[in-house]
């Protein structure tokens, strides 16, 4: 599903959460929506899902989404807590809602996921642990099989093994049923291998939109003898450094020219792709507070 956002603004009283944002997603990819706390991720996703009337234009496959039945049918957004679940309802009842109201709902898959995440069907949503509530949100999102599926930090409450199970389930389901999936997360490195394209926003504005691999190529991890690394990175933009004994790894922002690559070989330095997380930190809070 193609997503087109043009001049989108979301305000809460005097606070502007999204400020005249424009971008397009070609669709059928797993997108990472990255941003610091309060950057506007939830507001953006809420506008994409028709949860609030947009100022500006939000179109899905060329159709405006807000109060458009045909477009709304194709969207599922699960925010921090499951929107599609009342805390007084049992889990089994929540799945019944999905089956009753969503044409694309896959109940067999929902039950499979419930078993995978060990969510008790007879328990009320309000009595579930934070991790189980998060998992229920993921179940609702994935089982909806919506052409545009959005998860807003839905998996943050899960423990590590459950998150890994979620990543596997997400990837397998995406391979079997390709669609547009947007995930916002602070656990960037955990999800990095799944993301095909990254959208970074900050203070309500688009910072960049890039293929994940292209973004990674914007920087280099330089590893080797500490003194050699220091010599090599002198004058370059170093995002972060880690040392272990005499070995040092430095994340360098920006491409390296042939001369620099030759020098790295001469010094015996290892060059590798940069971590998305380091790039994200750099792009949303560069040294000196200037972007």
């Amino acid at each position, binding site marked *: 599903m193609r997503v087109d956002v043009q001049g989108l603004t979301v305000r809460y009283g005097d606070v502007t959460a999204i400020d005249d944002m424009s971008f397009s997603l070609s669709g059928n990819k797993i997108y990472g929506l990255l941003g610091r706390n309060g950057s506007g991720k939830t507001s953006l996703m809420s506008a994409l899902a028709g*949860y*609030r009337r947009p100022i500006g234009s939000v179109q899905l496959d060329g159709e405006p989404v807000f*109060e458009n*039945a045909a477009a*709304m049918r194709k969207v*599922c957004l699960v925010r921090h807590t499951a*929107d599609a679940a009342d805390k007084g309802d049992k889990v089994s009842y929540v799945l019944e*809602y999905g089956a009753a*109201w969503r044409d694309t709902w896959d109940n067999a898959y929902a039950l499979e996921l419930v078993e995978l995440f060990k969510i008790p069907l007879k328990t009320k949503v*309000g009595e579930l642990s934070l991790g189980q509530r998060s998992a229920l949100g993921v179940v609702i999102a994935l089982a909806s099989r919506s052409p545009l599926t959005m998860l807003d930090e839905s998996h943050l409450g899960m423990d590590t093994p459950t998150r890994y199970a979620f990543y596997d389930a997400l990837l397998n389901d995406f391979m079997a049923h390709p669609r547009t999936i947007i995930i916002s997360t602070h656990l960037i490195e955990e999800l990095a291998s799944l993301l095909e394209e990254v959208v970074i926003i900050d203070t309500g504005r688009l910072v960049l939109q890039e293929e994940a691999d292209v973004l990674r190529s914007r920087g280099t991890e330089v590893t080797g003898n500490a003194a050699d690394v220091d010599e090599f990175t002198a004058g370059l933009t170093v995002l972060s450094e880690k040392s272990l004994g005499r070995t040092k790894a430095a994340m360098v922002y920006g491409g390296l020219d042939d001369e620099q690559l030759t020098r790295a070989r001469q010094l015996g330095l290892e060059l590798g792709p940069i971590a998305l997380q380091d790039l994200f930190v750099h792009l949303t809070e560069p040294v000196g507070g200037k972007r």
Partner: protein
Amino acid sequence: MKVFRHLTTTLVTFSAMVAASVFAFVVVVTFVVSAFRGVEISAWNVVTSQIARWFLLWVGVYVIHNQLPIAVAHGRTRREFLVAASGFSVVLALVMALIAWLGFAIEGGIYSLMDWRADEHGSPWAYFLMFLVWCAVGMFCAAAFDRFGASGVFWVPVGLALVVVTTAGIPGSGNLPFIRNVPVLLGSGWHALSVVAFLIALAGTWVIARDMPIRVRTT
């Protein structure tokens, strides 16, 4: 249609079960009371004229506050939901009025057998209109609070004004704090005013909820 069917099958069934349970309870209470003193009032009339309308109000609140966000989260538009909820409120009021009438019929039989006296009660039409308006006002107030937050309290007097008229045709329910006996003054025009009150409450709900943002729940 899916939303209407779901609301009707789940909430109407639930409400009917609650009403049946309450009826069984008041029958037992009546027999217990009869052991100590003579029975002179209809216990079921106390329930239907005083308690039931608050239950209908709660259902109205529940439908907008709890079910509307879930419907939108499952890809339904507010318009679709409000159409379904409007139809649902009519069906619910009708079913509850029928249950009230059935309860009076059964209670009347019991009272005759036991030679007890019951005070008069309203017509099924009067209960239907009362339930209809209270449910619609519940939706209206819930929409106001969900949309405007604490400022929704300013819409409560409007809701109160709308429900006052509905109790005119029901003995034992006409007195509200500070506005005692006012409904009696409405005379035979109460049913038309009830219909108007329902339409106003419904229109108010539509105006407020039609483009209401779905906020993140913190609990």
